[in-house]
């Protein structure tokens, strides 16, 4: 009984075929393939056409797994054994269609997923290449644009000092405005490209936090007022006075946020708030937040608003501000968060961990403000002074640097961009400023006026020495009127400069 069942079961699964040595069918079951006797077995399926080659050189047996013998209509996947017999071949076909069907499914899934992940890697690689190329291009391109723009700005400044009619002055004002906007945009694009290329490195140093905030307050109160907006600044008083971080980059983040707030808000208030989340050992966690009463951001745009070039096409005049914010915060290990409600306003905030020195840093300038304890006061000739040298011409920079380094009692910082002077002056205490009057984007007298208008006593009184190639009496008088304490004309003797400095540092 069992034997019979087994035979029945097996009968359906196997086919036995006998052929002669040329492959002609001698005898066959008709279970799986229909095979005619006396016909070449190759007619049944092309697999069998190769039997002579396969069994070449007296091979006794050969086994083939997973041979597709069926048609798309009637699948048949089989293992095939070929045995050499005395005067021909025995072919045994075993139907394993079911078994191989699950194998196929597995292989399908595996291969597809391997190929997919390969293609994703390739695609990413290609995107990265493109992104790299784009950034490279943008960076080079903006560098190229910088030079002519610098010339335009410089020439505009010179033009402004010539004899002009009311109308011409008006036109010039617009021209200056446009070029300075252009310059800012260019700087933005450059920053983005540098961030994207990973070329931007943070440059942390200790800075005075109240001064830092005061600078923002000053800048944006005026800006907001021009648009009829209010600007409020509040900070937690427990925030340490000195913090360590990349002040310039932090400033860039906050100015971008404030710029946007001012730009988009039509009425109401923009508020900058800095809260102390936590203070531990020598680290302070701060939350910076900028709130506006502008139009708000629709929820569907919240995701894309931070993407760099995404925005360019969308709203006219939208800079790369937020992308820069995102990139810079990334660099500082923080992320920007946005809460916004259409029609009510937006709230941008981020948390930043900054170290703070446990003692107030001792700076030469700070020493000056200590009560005069004569005994401890250093001897006059060993006293060191901090000098800010504002000069864009590299040659002049180097020669001045040499003159100042020789006496050995000056710490010298060099700034070549007028725009950075204000920040430098507010954040580090300088004892004296040497300033080229012909800076590319702002003139020395304008800078001097701005410094003299600062609300901080120690800043507004810093002695300023102007350096100029212009020796007209009237011009020199004008510089002094702007607030310079002395003006030295090029070329000058090293001694003359040092004497003037000593006189002013007393």
């Amino acid at each position: 009984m069992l034997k019979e069942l087994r035979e029945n079961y097996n009968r359906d699964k196997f086919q036995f075929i006998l052929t002669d040595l040329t492959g002609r069918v001698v005898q066959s079951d008709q279970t799986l393939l229909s095979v005619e006797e006396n016909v070449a077995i190759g007619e049944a399926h092309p697999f069998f056409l190769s039997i002579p080659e396969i069994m070449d050189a007296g091979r006794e047996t050969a086994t083939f797994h997973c041979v597709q013998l069926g048609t798309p209509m009637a699948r048949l996947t089989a293992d095939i054994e070929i045995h050499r017999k005395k005067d021909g071949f025995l072919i045994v076909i075993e139907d394993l269609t079911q078994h191989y069907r699950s194998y196929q499914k597995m292989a399908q899934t595996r291969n597809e997923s391997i190929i997919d992940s390969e293609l994703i890697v390739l695609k990413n690689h290609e995107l990265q290449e493109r992104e790299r190329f784009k950034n490279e291009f943008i960076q080079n391109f903006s560098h190229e644009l910088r030079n002519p723009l610098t010339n335009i700005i410089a020439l505009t400044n010179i033009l402004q000092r010539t004899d002009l009619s009311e109308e011409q002055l008006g036109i010039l004002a617009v021209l200056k405005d446009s070029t300075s906007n252009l310059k800012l945009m260019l700087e933005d694009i450059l920053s983005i490209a540098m961030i994207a290329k990973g070329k931007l490195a943070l440059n942390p140093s200790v800075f005075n936090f109240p001064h830092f905030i005061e600078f923002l307050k000053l800048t944006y109160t005026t800006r907001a007022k021009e648009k009829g907006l209010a600007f409020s600044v509040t900070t937690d008083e427990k925030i340490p006075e000195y913090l360590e971080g990349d002040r310039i980059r932090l400033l860039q983040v906050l100015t971008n946020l404030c710029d946007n707030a001012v730009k988009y808000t039509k009425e109401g208030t923009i508020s900058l708030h800095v809260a102390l989340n936590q203070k531990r050992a020598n680290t302070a966690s701060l939350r910076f937040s900028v709130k506006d009463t502008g139009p708000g951001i629709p929820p569907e745009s919240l995701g894309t608003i931070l993407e760099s070039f995404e925005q360019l096409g969308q709203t006219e005049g939208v800079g790369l501000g937020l992308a820069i914010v995102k990139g810079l915060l990334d660099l500082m290990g923080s992320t920007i968060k946005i809460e916004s409600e259409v029609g009510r306003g937006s709230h941008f905030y981020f948390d930043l961990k900054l170290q703070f020195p446990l003692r107030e840093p001792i700076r030469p300038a700070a020493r000056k403000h200590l009560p005069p304890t004569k005994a401890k006061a250093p001897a006059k000739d060993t006293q060191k002074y901090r000098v800010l040298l504002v000069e864009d011409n590299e040659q002049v920079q180097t020669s001045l640097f040499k003159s100042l380094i020789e006496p050995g009692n000056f710490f010298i910082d060099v700034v070549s961009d007028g725009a950075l002077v204000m920040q430098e002056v507010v954040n580090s205490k300088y004892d004296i400023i040497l300033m080229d009057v012909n800076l590319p984007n702002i003139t020395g007298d304008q800078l001097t006026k701005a410094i003299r208008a600062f609300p901080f006593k120690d800043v507004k009184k810093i002695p300023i020495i102007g350096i100029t190639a212009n020796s007209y009496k009237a011009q020199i008088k004008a510089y002094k009127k702007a607030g310079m304490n002395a003006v030295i004309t090029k070329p000058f003797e090293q001694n003359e400069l040092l004497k003037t400095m000593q006189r002013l540092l007393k």
Partner: protein
Amino acid sequence: MNISKKIVVLGYFGVGKTSLIRRFVENSFSNDYKVSIGVHIVKKTVQVSTDDTVSLILWDLEGTDDIASVRESYLLGTHGIIYVFDVSRPSTFQSIEKDLEALAKKVPGVPTQVVGNKIDLVASEEVDATLTEKGISFDYLTSAKTGEKVNELFEHLAKILALDAERIKGKLQ
């Protein structure tokens, strides 16, 4: 005269072995990917000269990323090999040289055509540059999708095999 020749088509999975054969045999193409398992065999006869035809018995093997795992029995008695890689997927031509060496050991002296498929996906100058840089030599760059160089490939191999057969016959006589 008609001779029949066994040709094994192999290479990494998904490179287009099945598609090349299908283009050659049925002149059709599908974008769908159905993974082949084991071996599927088809026959197509090629005219190599006015009097002679070669019946190519094409063994379309399951793709693998390791030539060592190709079942030995599939290679038994083969007259020709077509080694296919995918020009758009570097992983499929990373170890060509090694694979060809391994094959030459398993089935010595068998004429082999090395084929870069899917040339429709990549600029051919780019492919040329990449392959030259890697020191990979190939016989054909094909596209099963557009049909580019597909017939040429099979017909060329058929001719090589026909010539081989002539030579052997000549020796025997």
